[in-house]
């Protein structure tokens, strides 16, 4: 049975213009990601991983090439439709958490629901239950500055999944965390993937990458490796 494709990327390039200088962040990237995959993106700093991720998350557009998300041609969408995708289909998790600093954990988690027009009471209830499922009971009314890094990242994950997206994009989500918190966050991702959510995750660390079943490597704006985890590794119980 052919797997349903969630993401189809064809020959995408991205050029940043800084005055006279042109930076080629992506030089012809093509990739397919099926529904339910867990993909690790690796590669040296400056290779174009974040740029690629931002395009997948509709935060930015490619200079050329085609991007089809869930059968929808993204490049032909207007800003409202892109906002809709970011709101409903994609959940973003950043290395620096990107929580609203003056809002409580609960308000941060509610945010996507606010923009999809969900009423206050429903919003509160739903945000509360997702927050609790992240093990953050008792932290609902804390502002980010009063939460640890691990807790902040779990708030961010709660926010990413509250609208039940089919895709989670995580750009070095464990980069600012100690190994214990990192492991906990990865456990959550693994759990979410089990529920059928497609996960794409950038990481530098190979032990983090081992949570994923498939691994691609970026080098100088191109995908240079694309490997499925070997059976032996899986049998070793890491994945």
């Amino acid at each position, binding site marked *: 049975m052919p797997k349903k494709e969630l993401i189809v990327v064809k020959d995408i390039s991205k050029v940043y213009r800084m005055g006279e200088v042109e930076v080629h962040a992506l030089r012809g990237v093509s990739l397919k990601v099926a529904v339910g995959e867990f993909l690790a993106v690796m590669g040296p700093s400056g290779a174009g991983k974040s740029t690629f991720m931002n395009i997948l998350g509709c935060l930015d557009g490619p200079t050329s090439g085609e991007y089809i998300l869930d059968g929808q041609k993204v490049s032909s969408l207007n*800003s409202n439709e892109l906002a809709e995708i*970011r709101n409903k289909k994609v959940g973003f998790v950043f290395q620096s958490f990107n929580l609203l600093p003056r809002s409580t954990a609960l308000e941060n988690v509610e*945010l996507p629901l606010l923009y999809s027009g969900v009423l206050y009471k429903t919003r509160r209830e739903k945000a509360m239950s997702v927050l609790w499922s992240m093990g953050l009971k008792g932290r609902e009314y804390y502002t980010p500055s009063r939460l640890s890094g691990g807790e902040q990242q779990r708030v961010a994950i709660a926010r990413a999944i509250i609208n039940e997206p089919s895709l989670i994009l995580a750009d070095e989500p464990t980069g600012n965390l100690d190994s214990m918190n990192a492991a906990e966050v990865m456990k959550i991702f693994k759990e979410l993937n089990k529920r059928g959510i497609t996960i794409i995750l950038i990481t530098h660390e190979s032990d983090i990458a081992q949570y994923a079943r498939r691994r691609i490597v970026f080098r100088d704006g191109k995908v240079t490796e694309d490997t499925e985890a070997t059976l032996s590794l899986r049998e070793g119980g890491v994945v």
Partner: protein
Amino acid sequence: MKLSLEIVRTALRTLRQHKLRSALTMLGVTIGVGSVIAMVSMGQGARALVKAQIEGLGSNMLFVFAGSTTTGGARFGTGTAFTLTIEDARAIQRECLSVALVSYGKRETNQVVYGNQNWNTVITGVTPEYRLIRNWTLSSGTFFTDRDTERATTVCVLGQKVAESLFLGENPLGKTVIIKKVPFRVIGVMESRGAIAGGERDQDDQIFIPFTTAEWKIMGSVLPGYVSIIYASATSNEAIPEAEEQIKELLRQRHNITKDQADDFIIMNLRDIAAFREATGKILTYLLGSIASVSLVVGGIGIMNIMLVSVSERTREVGIRMAVGAKRRDILVQFLVESVVLSCIGGLIGLALGVGGSQLLSLIGRWPVLISPLMILVAFSFSVLVGVVFGLYPANQASRLNPIDALRYE
């Protein structure tokens, strides 16, 4: 964000998160709205007072001044040319059917002495009918009569202010004051009429003497038989235009003015004077109002300034909101509502301060104050408008940010 209440709540929360900044921003609008209300209330109060005073003068009254609009321009109480005579006044009394009473007068500023007190005031020589035309009662004593006019007696009636200034609480009746070395016996004191705000000198600051006495003993008889002003009352309020027309016709005829010549006199009725004063008051109100409006605009610029700072400070916040699905319109509305909420609250506080302040002013400063609901509505709407107008640009700036650029902003 389809839910308007939600947006307002979010805006309020954000503003609470920046208390000091919000307060300082509102201050501009508060001062603007407050001063608009205070200023306009003062202007309107002054207008209302003038109107009441003019109505109190006796509304059937007509004045005829010597002079013409082209050469002189009318100044209340002074004839700029010598064209009116006692005979004119008598003719008006005789021939104008719509005229009830006629009086005439001459005025001069002079020193008045009582004992070791002296006072500079206006000496007004009139006939006894003057008091009736002006509908002016006495607080004590009597006004002079036709007999006094016939004999040119040296009696006088003091305006309230003159009485107070010269006699310092003493009873003036029967006392003697000296005007230009001539001793006058005080036979009455007029009731207080007060100053007409924004215009003439105090009506209470004058002394009335018989016209003949004024002409022969005080003002010299350079031009005997000439008067500087004729007072007349129409038979009724409705008859004022007719009376005016009849007087005009008669005087033109008596002065041999041909069809293509201008009048050598000016007739004014109280309505004209009221209208003139009203216009002056209006100008005053507009002037004060527009000065205050400038401060409201300055307040608006303050809002814009702070909102621009706020937008650039919160670029990352905008990025985060966009990353989780905020549309451009959501961001626009959010910032716009913030600025409107700021200006509304600022406006409401300004409103309270403006109303309270002008009440205080009328209490302490004895300045007449009139607060109209319309003005309050206008000032408040204006402050909302300020919020929209000056919030639009920063809000638009925020909504046009590119999500990824906003997120990366440090």
